[in-house]
């Protein structure tokens, strides 16, 4: 096993342990925002997408990497924004009833 692979494996295992340790005793209230927050983090795949886009020469590679970059950016931007919107709801004092979107009641779905 090459030293680089061993190093990468070490990093992988440590990051897994971090992940386990971080989510320990979370109140259920925060499950959805946490899921959404973790969802934004894997948007880091944008870094990888940029790297392959930079070295893409043939058309297929260019196409694939374009889609990858667009997908990944959507994940990053949308993920963080939507998580922030969720968490805004948890503020303690509702700072003067703000007329936010989405408050418009909608027809029940069920």
């Amino acid at each position: 096993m090459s030293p680089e692979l061993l190093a990468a494996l070490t990093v992988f295992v440590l990051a897994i342990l971090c992940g386990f340790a971080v989510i320990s005793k979370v109140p259920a209230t925060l499950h959805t925002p946490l899921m959404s927050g973790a969802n934004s983090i894997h948007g880091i795949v944008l870094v990888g997408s940029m790297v392959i886009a930079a070295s893409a020469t043939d058309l297929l590679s260019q196409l694939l990497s374009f889609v990858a970059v667009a997908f990944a950016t959507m994940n990053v931007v949308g993920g963080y924004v939507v998580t922030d919107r969720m968490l805004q709801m948890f503020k303690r004092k509702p700072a003067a009833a703000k007329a936010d979107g989405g408050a418009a009641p909608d027809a029940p779905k069920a």
Partner: protein
Amino acid sequence: MSPEALATLESVVRLVWLAGAAAFVLGLMRMNSPATARNGNLLSAGGMALAIGGTAVLLAARGEAGLTAWIIILAGIALGGGLGLYTARTVKMTAMPQLVSLFNAVGGGAAALIAIDDYIRLSNVQTFAPGGAIPLQVAIPTVLDVVIGSITFTGSLIASGKLMGLIPGKPIKVPGGQLVTLALAVVVAVAAIYLWLGNVSVPILFVIIAASLTFGVTMVLPIGGADMPVVISLLNSFTGTAVAMAGFVISNDVLIIAGALVGASGAILTKLMADAMNRSVINIIAGGFGGGEGTVAAEGPEGGTVRSLGVDDAAIQLAYAQNVIIVPGYGLAVAQAQHGVRELAELLEARGVNVSYAIHPVAGRMPGHMNVLLAEANVPYPQLREMEDINPEFDRADVALVVGANDVTNPAARRAGTPVSGMPILDVDHARSIIVIKRSMGRGYAGIDNELYVNPKTGMLFADAKQGLADLVAAVKAL
């Protein structure tokens, strides 16, 4: 740029990536408590901006990216960023889970595309140098990335579609069912082993892609809509793993760290979510009792009589109580009655009644559902009380007002042998009297009758939650 300067820059960018990864961990840590959660998310976003900025600088310094490449990158970022921003900004609070699932789908897709692209390039090189295999330490993560990423892609799209109502929420039995799933798994396994044995073949990779994409569909279709939050969380964990594999493929530490972090924390979160519903993840994936969304049966539970209550009676009980605990449930969410409930509570408080809300961890159809809805309706945060915290206080409550909640109040959970057995419940039956607002004697998510409704202390106010609350408000005002 001189080679030495470039080497230094590479080191610096790697440190920047590491700082970004650290921000992800610290951000997640801060998201563990409501007070610091928003700040934690911003920290995580800051780390992301840092990592992406560093990458851009590195690519520019290396100078290997031509104009086309930059156009691709910038156009991709503009397109994806615009779509992400627009949808995230405009989505309704109640529709968030499906959007998260959509973002998860594209993340998984991107991870798979990286491995696919890398494999095709390597295979081109290999074609010129026949006989040379792709080393196992690349082949293994490539295949894993492609498989997991593809499953996540279609699986998350289906989950999102179910929640949006584009695909029926009911469990859909795939013809052939488990047989198809099994066959797909075998195809993927055989193809993977073929590639790992040293064979280089793009067509076989596409077989794997196709089988995995189909697998994602057949995995999620048979699961009921109500279980989707857990499924989304699981697929979220999958995407993390796929991203980590992509990191192995292109030897990039920050992808490995962030991916593994999400993979692991997502797995724990999935388990916590399932635990809170007293189910196992396996049970959910295998398609449990989910999907029976309310209004199934109309007969009352045997051996008990149901007492129906008028709006005016209910209003009097509430208005002259000292302590009222409101128990919101899925029905409140469906009826969008959060504003009505807040109005009633304010009215009661103005009359000197103590009002608080008992929030069951899995009331509704996604964790934290009730908190988000009530917060949206500007219910003050300290009035929202968690289950363990408020359960002892039902003993002192004059009235428990149950609005569209069912399973989370069912005393049957305290006995063994029912589908809800073992699920912690709100001790609503300890209150001096109980008022339940729902449309009928219909069942809840678990599909069983609720013994609370035949409790002599209980009065049923049959109405749509929104309408019933409006009537109550009017009646209290008229007192």
